[in-house]
């Protein structure tokens, strides 16, 4: 039986719908689909493979099966969140003591201390600023990397770089690579989903593109609206009308097969309709939160008064529901809180506060919820922007882009909790210890998913392309202890 939903009993109505569809127009295709899902293939799937989402063999035993990427569009400030700098406070208002690199806006102000206080949390005592009280409770599950670097000072290049490992438009997004490499555990939802909070990061939808990978691995944007996915609602007035059409279609398609031969391409295109039909049911079911308890929805902040919290809370809750259904890579993007995302070139205090208030409670709830349900162990959660912000002011009260040193955190899915990795200088400007590049982040993410980043390739115009290009090192220091001798081939199929 197809167990798309991850171990969780699904409401009856949905089962009914599924079985009706299974016995309906596409039973032949469905049988084929189920047979296919048991097949594994470690090689790259050929373009046009019938069931491209079938789970595939990983290079070694994965510690995480999926990723939730909390993308903090705009670049949160490291020195105001996870990287406290006493010296910055002491010299606040004075000329910045280090040599200043070219910045995006070239409007250099004085050294600017953080407006927020830091406190230590958990057994590990990792300091977190007042911006993230809920997230802070989970520090013992988190590895905080304080030595991130990027190669770009502009959002668009930075976004492309973070998402695709290349600063220019036109490479596959990390979610596409992961969908391509691992396939899906779910046959009725896409493997790579962007839960959009309302803002599209600079660089546009190409941040989520499949590029030269087959369109199969394209990120699907779920919008925060009634119809989250394009064309997901049937165009007919009733299910009966649609089914009649699909039945006639099946007959005509079968006669095409009779005439042309049972060619794989045609059969898979026919099977596609099966999947599409089931998505029409599965997606609304996913988005419908009626089966969540009130305490759950409250925990996620769906009733919160602060701006944007309910929207992001809903995204986080749906992310958990997607995790349960086996979606492979879920990226959450920010919503509108009345400022320009985390990009506070002016009014840092107001902007960062509002942005943090929108996401803090929902993220805290997501971590709690995943942990309670035993899902955090094999779900990798990553929180990051595309770069950080300057420790000196832009103008009087903002901060400019800073790719030379910034912070992110990772939790769950094989991550060693309660540790801090790397460091910036005394001002939090540049990485000086254990420099981590975006390629290293990608390599580590793939590693946790059981994929050797140097081996996951796609031949495109004469090169074996990789998410990490020719770079990338796994950050072993942040991985939960496990003897490496355990490494052995393993399929992700449960």
């Amino acid at each position, binding site marked *: 039986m197809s167990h798309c939903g991850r171990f969780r009993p699904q409401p009856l109505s949905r089962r009914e719908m599924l079985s009706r569809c299974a016995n309906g127009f596409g039973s032949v295709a469905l049988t084929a689909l189920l047979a296919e899902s048991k097949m594994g293939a470690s090689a790259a799937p050929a373009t046009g493979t019938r069931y491209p989402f079938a789970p595939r063999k990983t290079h070694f035993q994965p510690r995480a099966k999926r990723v939730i990427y909390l993308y903090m569009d705009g670049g949160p400030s490291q020195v105001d969140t996870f990287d406290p700098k006493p010296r910055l406070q002491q010299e606040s208002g004075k000329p910045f003591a280090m040599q200043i690199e070219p910045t995006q806006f070239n409007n250099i102000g004085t050294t600017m201390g953080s407006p927020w206080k830091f406190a230590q949390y958990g057994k590990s005592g990792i300091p977190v600023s007042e911006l993230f009280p809920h997230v802070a409770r989970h520090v013992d599950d988190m590895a905080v990397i304080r030595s991130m670097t990027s190669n770009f000072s502009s959002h668009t290049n930075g976004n492309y770089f973070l998402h695709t490992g290349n600063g220019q438009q036109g490479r596959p997004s990390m979610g596409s690579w992961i969908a391509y490499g691992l396939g899906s555990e779910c046959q009725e939802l896409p493997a790579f989903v962007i839960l959009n909070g309302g803002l599209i990061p600079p660089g546009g939808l190409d941040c989520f593109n499949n590029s030269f990978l087959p369109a199969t691995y394209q990120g699907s944007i779920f919008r925060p609206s009634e119809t989250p*996915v394009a064309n997901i609602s049937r165009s007919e007035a009733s299910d009966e009308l649609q089914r009649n059409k699909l039945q006639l279609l099946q007959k005509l398609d079968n006669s095409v097969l009779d005439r042309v031969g049972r060619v794989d*391409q045609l059969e898979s295109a026919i099977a596609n309709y099966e999947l599409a039909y089931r998505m029409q049911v599965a997606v609304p079911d996913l988005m419908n939160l009626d089966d969540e308890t009130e305490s759950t929805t409250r925990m996620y902040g769906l009733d919160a008064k602060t701006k944007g919290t309910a929207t992001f809370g809903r995204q986080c809750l749906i992310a958990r529901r997607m995790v349960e259904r086996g979606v492979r890579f879920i990226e959450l993007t920010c919503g509108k809180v009345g400022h320009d995302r985390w990009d506070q070139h002016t009014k840092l205090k107001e902007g960062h506060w509002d942005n943090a208030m929108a996401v803090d409670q929902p993220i805290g709830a997501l971590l709690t919820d995943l942990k309670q349900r035993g899902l955090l162990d094999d779900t990798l959660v990553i929180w990051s922007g595309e770069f950080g912000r300057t420790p000196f002011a832009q103008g009087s009260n903002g901060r400019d882009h800073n790719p030379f040193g910034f912070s992110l955190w990772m939790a769950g899915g094989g991550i060693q909790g309660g540790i801090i990795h790397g460091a910036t200088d005394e001002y939090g400007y540049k*990485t000086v210890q254990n420099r981590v590049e975006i390629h290293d982040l990608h390599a580590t993410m793939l590693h946790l998913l059981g994929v050797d980043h140097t081996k996951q390739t796609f031949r495109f115009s*004469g090169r074996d392309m990789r998410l990490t290009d020719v770079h990338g090192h796994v950050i072993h220091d942040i991985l939960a202890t496990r003897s490496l001798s355990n490494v052995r081939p393993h399929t992700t199929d449960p």
Partner: protein
Amino acid sequence: MLRVRCTTKPFVLVTLATVIVLVIGDGQAWSFTDADLEFFERQVRPLLVARCYECHGPETDELKGGLRIDSRAAILTGGETGPAIVPGDPNSSLLIDAINYGNVVQMPPKSKLPDHEIAILTKWVKMGAPWPQTAAPGQADPKRAFNLQERREEHWCWQPVRANDPPEVRNADWPKRPLDFFILTRLEAVDLEPAETADRRTLIRRASFDLIGLPPSPEEVEAFLHDDSPEAFEKVVDQLLESEHFGERWARHWMDLVRYAETYGHEHDFELPYASQYRDYLIRAFNQDVPYNQFVIEHIAGDLLENPRRHPTEDYNESIIGTGFWWLGEAAGSPVDVVDDEAVRVDNQLDVMSKTFLGLTVACARCHNHKFDAISTKDYYALSGYLKSSRRVEAFIDPGGEVRQATDRLQAIRGRGDELLRQSLPPPNDDLKQMMARYLLASQDAMFTTPTAEVKDDLDPDRLSRWVAALKEEATEQATHPLHPWLAMARHRGPLQPQQLDQQRRHLVSRAAKDATRDEQTPVFEKFDGEDFGDWFVNGEAFGKGPTRAGQWDSRQRGTMPARPGIAHSGMLADRHQGVLRSRDFTITHPHIMYRVAGTGGQIRLIMDSHFMVVHSDLLFVEFQLKVDTEGAWTWRQQAGDIGRYLGHRAHLEIIDHGDGWVAVDEIRLAGSDLPAAEDNPLARRVFDKPDLSSINDLAEAYADLIAESLARWRNSNADARETDLVRWLMKHELVDVDPDVRDQLADLATQLSDESSPMPHPVRVLAMADGTGQNQHVYIRGNHHTPGEVAPRQSLVAFAGDNQPVVKNGSGRLAFAHQLVNPSNPLTARVMVNRLWHHLFGRGIVASVDNFGVLGQRPTHPELLDHLANQFVRGNWSVKRMLREICTSSTYQMSSLPTEKGSSVDPQNLLLHRIRIRRLQGEVIRDAMLVISGRLNQTQFGKSVPVHLTEFMRGRGRPENSGPMDGDGRRSVYIQVQRNFMVPMMLAFDAPQPFNSIGRRNVSNVPAQALIMMNDPFVVEQAGVWAKRLLADKSRSTEKRIYNMYVAGIGRPPSDAEMADTLDFLGQQSRALGLSEDEGRSDERIWKDLCHVLMNVKSFIFVY
């Protein structure tokens, strides 16, 4: 933590008395005491071992950056970026810069060294880098040398195209065309038979989609079915090749190669102007079957052709539009590192160019010699030089040559004006001099002594009052006016005192000296005082053939007035003219650029490191663009802003007239701060330098001499600007007599100028390439622009053209490169193109990796066939249509797609082409086919693109304000705007490529989004409705006949009996579901719409076989 491989070996400390070690290595001898050496051994060496040896030590597998640091000699030799240290000078030592995390490299890469370790190494370098004198450790194995010739000889694609006769075959009846022999012989070798010939319905549908991208009409199908002639299919192919839709289909294939888009993508998705003209150029070129070699030349260097191809009816330069392809890439608005931004753009341009025309991945050689192919890094930078010497321009094309012709007439009129005016002025003689002197003196009296004094008899009172008015004018208050010192002197009544004269002379000399200092501090960039524009590049008609010159009529003023010489002026003939003047490349040395300008609606732009996006965003580039709107007055304008941040960068200037205004510039200076006003008065100096000046009368006579000289020089066309100004001043105030007849004639010429210019059309602008200052590019070591290496003279790939290519003397050299590409000795250009044609007709190229013929690409399945076709292509005058006809009329192309058991087992991937491959249609074709079948297709060709229809899922910065119509106005997909950040979702789902790079072979994926679109997308549903409405409008048909026609139109064949029965059943089912009677159902639009919708979803709608 840094992982360290510890390779320290024990060492013995020298503890004897002071030992002096002499080391010679950097051209000088350093002597070190044993204390120095102890410092090295105790502090420095362990540090080098611990921190650096992992990548730069004696046991490193792959030496990073080519640098070893296990001997002093190795450190002094350095790596790819040169010596690692300068002994004694830490500030100039790259190693010290690197450990301080400087600009070039940051070492060690993972963590910066602790301060005290940095201090140790710095001290060590400062000491002269003491190192015990030992034999230098053995050099690392030299890297396996990159041997271009070896690689060239080893790989098939570089070998000459061989002439291959068709091979022998057993079944001699089957081949129709030479190419069939090549296919058949391979099939016979494995004992396979080619598939049967496909039935006619299949054939015409296949050919129609392949050649024009649209389904055949039922009438065309019928005609073919009933054509018994042996050449029936040939006729079909010929008709399709002649169809005006042919170009639309093949242009779209080409657009995939040149990453065609109409916006720049990136953050704000700014509009990429004029792209659609390039698209139209492609459609025309394919329809006209422009020989492919010509087509290639036009792309690379269409701007440089002496005899460009003209549009057949509009008679404009077509060739130049081809160069637009260079500029269709992504572009960023405000790059922090503008040189890097340029390097990335050049990378993309070379990547697209080399893949498209050569099937080579040249861009792989940007940072290192190509890992597999016979392409060196130097090759890459040699090609970069072509681009460095070229510029992005908006070229003017001139439909019908109307602007050119009008300009010729305007110039002729102006020439007559020049002649007339020169004749009109009185030849300066003694009388004139005398008169001038007398009026000067008389006006002096009138102004300063006795305003009412009686006018001398022989002086004209009117003229005298004009003199007085002229001298009282504001202009003479300027110290630089030649008569300014006259007025100063004339205030003094009575005889001239020698000290007054001396004082005035000293004054004039000191002013001249000030100007000399000014010239030194603010060097002149341009004065436009030559015969022509010199090393400036002229674009368009507005600026004419050169700057204004002495002796010319001021045709802009239209009056009776000489033109000031030395002005680059875009409005001398007509405001309607447009044009751009581009300077040579220069290095920015001053933070300010000063222009003496006048104009209305003009612009001046500083293009630095080819960053043209400043039009859209001036963030980080403040004041790189200046508007010139001076209401006609001359003024100094300053360009400063961010320029000072970019000293040392390469740039050029653009003086732009892009509208119905004008712009004029007569001097450009570079400055450190504000420009002091000019003070020199050379004409007055000439007067006061005369000896024997003793009275005011002498001075008046000297001035009269000056006036006469100026007039004479002006008549001889060799007056300078000051002299011309004096003449203009005299004429303005009518202090010289101009023949009234000439005045009338000039007025008449002015009318003629207006009459000629007002109907003159505006030029049309297109995106193009133009030559700039010719220059070579340095190799960027490891692709890093901070580390320039040797110069790579611009030339073609060494693997084609050898090592001894002619040096490019003038301009970019692109034209020679273009000719080299299409020289039949180049083995790739023809092969790559015929392979592309084959790929589009068979779904797989003979070389499957159509954009990469290199080592990592796939080998040709039929190498002899590939060469045969390439030869045929060149012999057939590079005709694309002829080649397509050759292939389509072959037996191979006409095979059926039906799989056979034997075929599937012997040739499972169908590499030998034992049958035709089933292919899914491209997104564009699926959409176009729906429009054809619904009857909605709007056949309009060319022109501005239809804006993309925006759904709520298409969001982000740069989202257009207005959405286009859902059905794209019924236009073919090739005419729908390609908005980089807002691509049409249906196209993306069906694998239309993102336009960032050459994509000769699209993916063919299979995703639920495709099914969801076909089932639920409002556009698809709407077209089903349009079709249904059209079907029902014809009441004369029976239900069965109607169904019959639908099948024929929709999927190219009539329904079987079973299908007919199923379809009729379906009508009944939908009627019941809607609560209608069977009869009602048979005329219910909703139900027919459902049926139409189903037919559009049948797989044979989106597949050809």
